[in-house]
């Protein structure tokens, strides 16, 4: 079961959720807010999963002085140090990927292995939309398909405003320029049917992050962890367990995670 906790930091109080046992795994949520997917739930079966609610999301208060993605990265480093107490693996989705990268750049010792699931596309030169959620509504549809999102669907709209606020105070070029200094071994997951700007961003990240592996998840777009939880779990779990040796086929050593066709019920359910 998820436990709700709070941690007081100098900038304000961070609400977070914890579940599972084992090596710590930090999940940095995207603009959909702190939602539990089947992928995360199954990872919580192997790891102790920490899910901090980024300030301002789901109606939580903003923190003084935390205005940009860089600030959020610093906040997460501090959170990791105080709530977890040791370096940890980090998994992120969409906007959370920017925050996770910023954390890894600023505090290389905090983030061991880093997983970026569908990182939010970098802005285009013409100032086009920052993300495909705002553009197509396809993400809304994906979120509605899982019960955990149902009651909190209204919150997603508010979260998007929070994202826009953080992004407005962020110099994306600085984030990109810092990528070559990243020390974390990184896995980049992108849906094979993702929008063009998402794929372009993934290529750019693959090209700029030193030890980065790009993996396409077949038959999904932005929400691979919802559409294809088994494939996501298989890839992420192999990566977290074996590091860069996840490239080697170890199918016979894998813990079975069910079949793609088996309906799955989440037991963790909605966050409280």
């Amino acid at each position, binding site marked *: 079961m998820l436990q709700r906790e709070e941690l007081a930091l100098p900038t304000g109080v961070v609400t977070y959720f914890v579940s599972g046992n084992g090596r710590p795994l930090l999940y940095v949520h995207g603009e959909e807010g702190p939602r539990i997917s089947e992928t995360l739930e199954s990872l919580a079966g192997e790891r102790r999963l920490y899910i901090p609610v980024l300030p301002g999301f789901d109606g939580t208060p903003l923190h003084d002085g935390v205005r940009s993605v860089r600030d959020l990265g610093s906040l997460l480093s501090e959170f990791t140090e105080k709530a977890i107490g040791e370096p940890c693996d980090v998994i992120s989705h969409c906007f959370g990927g920017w925050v996770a990268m910023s954390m890894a750049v600023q505090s290389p010792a905090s983030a061991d292995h880093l997983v970026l699931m569908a990182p939010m596309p970098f802005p285009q030169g013409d100032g086009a939309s920052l993300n495909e959620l705002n553009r197509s509504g396809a993400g809304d549809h994906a979120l509605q398909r899982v019960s955990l999102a149902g009651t909190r669907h209204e919150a997603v709209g508010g979260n998007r405003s929070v994202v826009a606020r953080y992004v407005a105070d962020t110099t994306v070029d600085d984030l990109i320029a810092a990528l070559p200094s990243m020390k974390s071994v990184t896995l980049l997951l992108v849906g*094979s049917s993702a929008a063009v700007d998402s794929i372009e961003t993934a*290529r750019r990240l*693959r*090209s700029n992050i030193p030890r980065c*592996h*790009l*993996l*396409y*998840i*077949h*038959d999904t777009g932005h929400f691979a962890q919802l559409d*294809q939880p088994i*494939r*996501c779990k*298989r*890839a992420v779990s192999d990566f977290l367990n074996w590091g860069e040796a*996840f*490239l*080697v*086929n170890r199918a016979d050593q894998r813990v079975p995670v069910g079949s*793609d066709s088996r309906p799955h019920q989440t037991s963790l359910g909605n966050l409280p």
Partner: protein
Amino acid sequence: VKVTFFHLMPWTELTEVGRDWPVPNKYFDPARGTELYRSYIDTMVYAEACGFDQIGCNEHHFSPYGLMANPNLIAAILATRTQRSKIAVLGNLVALANPIRVAEEYAMLDVISGGRLVAGFMRGIPHEYVAYNINPSTSYARLQEATQLIIKAWTEPEPFGWEGEFYQFRAVSIWPRPVQKPCPPVLMSASNPDSAAFAARNRAMMGIVQLLDLSRAKENIRIYMEVAQAMGWQPTPDHIMIGQHTCICETDEEARAYLQSGHDYLFKVLGGGPRTAASIVLKDSRFYINPERGKAQVERRRTLAATSVEEAIEKGTMLCGSPETVVKQIKRLHAELGNGHLQVTMKVGNIPDHVVSNGMRLFKERVWPEIAHL
């Protein structure tokens, strides 16, 4: 209109009507096989001298009617022995193969040929799934995933991995990459309504062979166009290839006699085994999405086998006769279907090679000048 000279590379030495599958390979004579391969390859190379735009080959397994278990071997020879004609591999059976291997070999062919590859992505016919021990019910899903993976392997500039239902590769970065940008043209079968829609969804050229009649071909083309438009793209005549058995001689009578003989050999001697296998496979599998489609396909093959050349000419599903007669038949076909590509199979069954090469010469001298403007 562009014309593809297609060769099936049939075995010509069986004598008995076959019903069993697989056909025992004790009937294969390697020395005769060497002669046939050399003759067939020379014929295909000659197609360029006869002005054919493309030279085509394809893949079949455990099949005396098609001796190309790996058409890429033949295509590699053609790529070095020809200079202008495109090399149309129609195609690799991508649902049965390692898609990364397909991507690599096709890329090699495109580079060796200087960007002349037309890449067929085929599902195969039912018995191939027994031959390669793959569940036929997964054929469409495998074809879909393999297609996307191959195109990704061709076009992705960064190393990548793939986590799919049938294929998992953690690191892909093929060498070489294809010459053609963004990638070689892809052709898929559209011989039934489901496959026509599938080709359109994948933005591939469509190919229809072994027509029962022109109205069904028209219907498949309509479905292809409709699905393509729904997917946001507009095919042109260049996206439509129609394949026909073809025999050209000095007189109509001579051509009909040769084609009837070759047709009988192809369907009654060489085709019996595969038809038996198809019946077995289709009985308990979902090789066709719609089970009724499977029954229709079995019936289609029976009908094709029973159709005389005379009837096929009447229906517009074979090209046969003197050069002047064939010109009229091609014009009729083009007027009815609007195809920008025509694929001719002149080596039908055991039609003698000298009849085939004479027909190619007649095509160049007396057919081409009359249809080039179409």
